[in-house]
């Protein structure tokens, strides 16, 4: 909060200060003779710029305060536009009249000063025309046909705004009404720009924050999903294996015993999977071998296994149960669907800067309407661990084989 307040004040001071300086340089370069040389005028110029500086800051600060209180950021577009127009109007008027009044009261009003100057000029002109003391101002009453006096009145009035009324008193009529409107509109424009910048900045900031929150939320959800995915044991496999083991107890008790050990290894890995981000390939392969042994118990001659493992790859870190998931898919979608079964081949090798894990199985790739649970989990885990630098692809090769390939960068 403090950071944003500090930033706001810096913007205000430098923004409005910069504007004042801009004004100053404008007067210096373009109206030098009018404002700079004439000493008094220069002081008044400084004064009005300073007064405006404070009033602009005050008015916009009040505006900001009110907007915040209203909770403007939540407004729908239509309401926001309406609010914009009204705010600019009120703040503009406040800034304009605030500055003007302060100037008047403190005697630093340029307008007042000029008015006084004009009066002096009017009096001087009157004198120079030899009209002082006369009642030339009653021209149209006395001598309607005498145009020279009438012309004099109009002249003085036009140049200075001052003229003698019928009672002989000096009256003032501002000759540049337009100036008033222009000043006011200009103020509105300034305030409008300020408010525009303010609103745009806040909208962008809110979008940025929303995006950040969304990303954070996604990450949390993904992490939770990952946890569930990892502990997702395939019940179909478990119960089928148990059934087969039970059958083996009479037929081949020795095999039944080893099968129970293999199954318990797999269950243990499934449960421990949450604790480690990666395991060495050797450990994963041991698990996969146990898994394949159990599946061979079920499929018997319908499942043939081939392994082509580069010994140097055994130390490579891999996400736990990822290779197992691929092999499980190979059997589920490939081998178990074929009446005569098929072959599952596992390949592990280095290619250039990458480490590749490949699982091939006899079978055809069936286009699935949505990606299966296993594939999605593999993709997510690779994304999570390698941040987009690993990739995973499933495709048909050699006509009657399906290949799943994972490519991971070497650290």
């Amino acid at each position, binding site marked *: 909060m403090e950071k944003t307040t500090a930033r706001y004040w810096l913007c205000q001071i430098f923004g409005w200060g910069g504007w004042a300086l801009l004004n100053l340089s404008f007067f210096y370069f373009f109206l030098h003779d009018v404002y700079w040389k004439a000493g008094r005028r220069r002081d008044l110029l400084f004064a009005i710029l300073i007064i405006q500086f404070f009033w602009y800051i005050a008015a916009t600060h009040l505006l900001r305060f009110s907007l915040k209180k209203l909770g403007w950021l939540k407004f729908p577009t239509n309401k926001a536009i309406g609010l914009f127009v009204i705010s600019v109007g009120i703040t503009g008027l406040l800034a304009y009249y605030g500055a003007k009044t302060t100037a008047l009261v403190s005697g630093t009003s340029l307008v007042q000063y000029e008015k006084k100057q004009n009066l002096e000029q009017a009096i001087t002109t009157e004198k120079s025309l030899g009209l002082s003391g006369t009642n030339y101002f009653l021209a149209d009453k006395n001598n309607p046909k005498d145009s020279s006096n009438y012309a004099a009145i109009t002249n003085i009035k036009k140049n200075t705004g001052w003229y003698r009324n019928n009672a002989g008193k000096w009256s003032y009529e501002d000759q540049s009404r337009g100036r008033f409107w222009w000043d006011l509109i200009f103020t509105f424009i300034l305030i409008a720009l300020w408010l525009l910048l303010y609103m745009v900045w806040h909208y962008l900031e809110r979008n940025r924050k929303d995006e950040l929150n969304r990303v954070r939320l996604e990450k949390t959800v993904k992490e939770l999903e990952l946890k569930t995915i990892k502990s997702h044991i395939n*019940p*179909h496999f*478990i*119960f*089928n294996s*148990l*059934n*087969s083991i*039970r*059958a*083996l107890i*009479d*037929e081949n008790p020795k095999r039944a015993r080893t099968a129970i050990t293999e199954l318990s290894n797999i269950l243990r890995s499934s449960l421990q999977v949450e604790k480690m981000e990666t395991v060495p390939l050797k450990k994963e392969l041991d698990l996969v071998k146990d898994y394949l042994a159990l599946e061979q*118990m*079920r*499929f*018997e001659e319908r499942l043939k296994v081939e392994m082509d493992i580069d010994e140097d790859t055994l130390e490579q870190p891999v996400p736990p149960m990822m290779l197992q998931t691929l092999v499980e898919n190979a059997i589920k979608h490939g081998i*178990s*669907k*074929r*009446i005569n*079964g098929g072959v599952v081949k596992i390949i592990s090798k280095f290619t250039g800067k990458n480490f590749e894990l490949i699982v091939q199985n006899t079978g055809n790739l069936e286009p699935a309407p949505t990606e299966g649970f296993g594939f999605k989990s593999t993709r997510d885990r690779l994304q999570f661990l390698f941040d987009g630098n690993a990739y995973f692809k499933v495709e048909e090769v050699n006509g009657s084989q399906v290949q799943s390939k994972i490519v991971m960068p070497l650290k």
Partner: protein
Amino acid sequence: MLKVILIDDERLARNELKRLLQEFPDIEVIGEATNADEGIEKIETLNPDVIFLDVQMPGKNGFEMLTELEKSPHVIFVTAYDEFALKAFDVNALDYLMKPVEPKRLADAILKVKQKDEEDLLSYNSRGVLSEHDQVFVKDGERCWFIKLSEVRLFESVGNYAKVFFGTNKPLILKSLNALEEKLDDKVFFRANRKHIINLRMIEKIETYFNGGLLVDLIGGEKIEVSRRQAVKFKEMMSL
């Protein structure tokens, strides 16, 4: 004596079930099959009373096999764990067992089979003709039934399909009325007109109709016209 066939692609699973069934003296395992096609062959040649059927098999699954059978024996489904299969079983009130099979549950399932109508189990074994005691497996979308033919009151042709009217259901099967007419026992199922086969036992009322035809009211409320030509046959059949 109940005659049983085991259909499962895993040898060990079949062995395990065989071992369990040895405890039942009035159960005889007359055959085994390792996939759907083998299953159909064995069922049609050996005519078992009951089959134990694994749903997940390579090639065709258990449900697909059943729809290809002319008539279906009593089926006890067997599954390791398959959410979709379990849902199908529960939704359609089918008998099933989960692997590894619990002896007690197996006993309950067999008892249920024995409690079925004695007549149903002594179904005619003559190939080709379906009696009213036979049941057929019908699957229509998510729903499936084992329909005893005696419960079907009407077959109506809809394009290449036939609508099977039983209870409050009307599922579709991919069979033409002509094919059905050949298979069904003509003493029970009568071809009333080009589009309809009616179950004679389900008639409530008969009236005369235009052109020498008849109008038949069935128990379910359906009114079926009997064409003039068929009406002659009908009267012959029904006469003393």
